[in-house]
């Protein structure tokens, strides 16, 4: 395996961890829009569950950006400038979401809480939706000009397929968030999480099947021929995870449900990686594709960044697990959330 492929895998891994970790807190954000009657109690607890973690989860996105910049600078430059306004809007939703959490907890009046919860919920929803939209556009391929730059018109950005994928990613993350929240919340809120999880599971499934068919029919890497073994493995993982989730929600073994949900999220991304490899940005004109070879930085940079990664990431993973464990021993009680 060459460095370019190794980096493709590392960056894919970082993106996967990002979507699995920030995915659950985005999902919980979306759930806040649908809380039943006693809504502040529900939201208070949902937000408290992600309180210690959402910020750390978002760092995976920053690291993804940093690595993409360091190792595939041309893709970083082309992608972000080519989708200029969509990414600016996405960043603005991230910012609104980020200030909602510290602000909402400051005052305990209905209007104040409603306003910030709405900001938090809508921005989470929009981020999840936009992820699907951007993914759809990357799947369909973009137009690159001679200098490797792209220009995507807003009219092309929003197409039936991209809206479809947007709803799919929203439902997927919503289900994922529900499975995480169900592990941590108090009994009375568990039934809400279970119901939300089951509904979004169904929605996700309805939207996933046609999406996967489109991805597999428009199959540039010739997955069936070149990666049949990997592909079969992914199919098996899909079946196990997707079938287990509703059963897990019903039976109340939420840790396993969350694991299955993470597997489902990771599996979907893995299929995309298989679909793209060795391309990073697929152009409508295949000769202009940006690949892991023509868009990479020099081998020195790949090696230096790899060494830094090998030193830093194991430490990060160890203390991230430590952080989740430390806080997990102290499950929330209603008394905790009342003030």
């Amino acid at each position, binding site marked *: 395996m060459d460095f370019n492929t190794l980096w493709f895998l590392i960056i894919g891994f970082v993106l996967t961890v990002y979507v699995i970790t920030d995915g659950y807190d985005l999902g919980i954000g979306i759930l806040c829009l649908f809380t039943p009657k006693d809504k502040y109690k529900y939201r208070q607890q949902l937000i408290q569950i992600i*309180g210690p973690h959402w910020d750390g989860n978002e760092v995976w*996105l920053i*690291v993804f950006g*940093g690595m993409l910049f360091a190792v595939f*600078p041309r893709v*970083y430059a082309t992608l972000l400038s080519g989708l200029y306004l969509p990414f600016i809007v996405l960043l603005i939703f991230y*910012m609104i979401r980020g*200030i909602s959490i*510290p602000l909402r907890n400051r005052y305990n009046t209905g209007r104040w809480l409603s306003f910030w919860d709405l900001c938090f919920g809508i921005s989470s929803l929009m981020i999840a939706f936009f992820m699907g939209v951007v993914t759809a556009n990357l799947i369909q391929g973009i137009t690159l000009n001679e200098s490797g730059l792209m220009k995507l018109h807003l009219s092309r950005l929003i197409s039936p397929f991209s809206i479809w994928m947007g709803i799919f990613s929203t439902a997927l993350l919503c289900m994922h968030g529900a499975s995480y929240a169900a592990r941590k919340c108090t009994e009375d809120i568990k039934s809400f999480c279970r119901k939300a999880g089951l509904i979004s599971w169904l929605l996700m499934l309805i939207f996933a099947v046609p999406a996967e068919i489109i991805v597999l029919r428009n199959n540039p890497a010739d997955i069936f021929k070149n990666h049949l073994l990997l592909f079969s493995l992914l199919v098996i993982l899909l079946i196990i995870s997707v079938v287990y989730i509703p059963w897990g929600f019903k039976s109340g073994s939420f840790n396993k449900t969350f694991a299955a949900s993470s597997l489902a999220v990771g599996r979907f991304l893995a299929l995309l990686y298989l679909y793209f490899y060795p391309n990073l940005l697929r152009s409508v004109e295949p000769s202009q594709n940006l690949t892991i070879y023509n868009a990479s930085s020099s081998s020195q*940079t790949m090696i230096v960044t790899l060494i830094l990664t090998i030193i830093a990431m194991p430490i990060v993973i160890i203390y991230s697990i430590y952080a989740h464990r430390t806080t997990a021993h102290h499950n929330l009680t209603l008394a905790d959330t009342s003030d």
Partner: protein
Amino acid sequence: MDSVLLSRLQFALTIGVHFIFVTLSLGMVWLLLAVETLAWRTKDPAWEKAGRFFGRIFVTTFAFGVVTGLVMEFQFGTNWAGFSDFAGDVFGTPLAAEGMISFFLESVFIGIYIFGRNRLSRGTHWFSILMVTLGATFSAFWIIVANSWMNTPDGYVIENGRIILNDFSKVIFSESLWPRFFHTIDAVFIAGALFMAGVSSYFYLKNKETALAVKTLKLAIISGFIASVLELFPFGDMSARQIASTQPTKFAAIESLEKTQKGAPIVLFGIPVENPPHLILDIRVPYVLSLMAFHDINSEVKGMDQFERDELPPFALTFTTFHLMVGLGMFFIALTSFGTLLLHKGWIFRTKWFLILLIVSIPLPVIACQLGWITTEAGRQPWVVYGVLKTTDAASVNVSAGEVLTSIILFSLLYLVIMIFYIFLIVTDIKRGPQPLNEQQEY
């Protein structure tokens, strides 16, 4: 207006707002660590309350810093695709390192710090704020690595019109790294110290928690005094010499040296005028600039006449911001040394006007940091990578002026809201003052 100018304005806006939160959070974190250490070891309820109070302020500031910081990571790609493509081989790695080494550390452990008060052991809780402190400091290190490389690029070669990494240690430890790192860290520390001093003075004057205020004011004044003196010497001196030797255009402009000369004078006062860049009503002291720049009164310092006008940075702007920064730095030395004297004599809590002065001075170091940043960034112009890539060649050619204008409007509105809420939160926290220890605190 063209998209390059608009992109520059947007960058100045987004990083300027972000830097306000960075200045206060990074400046406060070392003092917070000291307070939490004292609270843990002495079990003194005054330190304990101080830890909770400043901890809460720190957490709020940090959260706003994170929120505004996310934009920075992606803005190189959205607005500066030319730069990202040209210099990504060298420039991306420090950013990736910053994420892996620093952001994870600070954001994971700030979660434990928030969650862990009264839930986890004192040792674990203290350890979490220590890790946050280290993470924040490493983060400053890596971003200054990246920015120093833009000022004094090294360790690269140019192949096929793009920068290629040659020697990574030269990229990290470029010539300006250490002077700029210490200069920045110390500057934000002054901001943290004067924030703590001002807030403590307010508590004392309002007769709130005076036992706490006496302790934190002492800590803030003494550490602020040491930091202010160090900022002049050695850190300011190191920075001046570094700029004189590596970025003569920046040095000539900020010091307003019109002609290359030996025994160059320093400007004590002057009003900058453009076309050609010069000063009116100026007062200068001969030899001092040569002494500062090369530690030799007879050394030759390059003036603005050595360069074409389009090689020089904007003169009036950089001259003004630089001198206001230096003036504020001198004021901090005067303020904190007088405060230390009052402390020593035991008069400080009777000197009401001085306590009021400390309260009024809270925003000044934040302003000084902004001025310093404008000086170094505007002073690097017209280059984005000094001597290698012009700013005009760095922007995204596929982004139109209309698009950038749209994003500037969106960012400006959002940042206005963010600033209003931040100030509102901090002011209400300060007015409410430290809370009794028996209450569970949520952030």
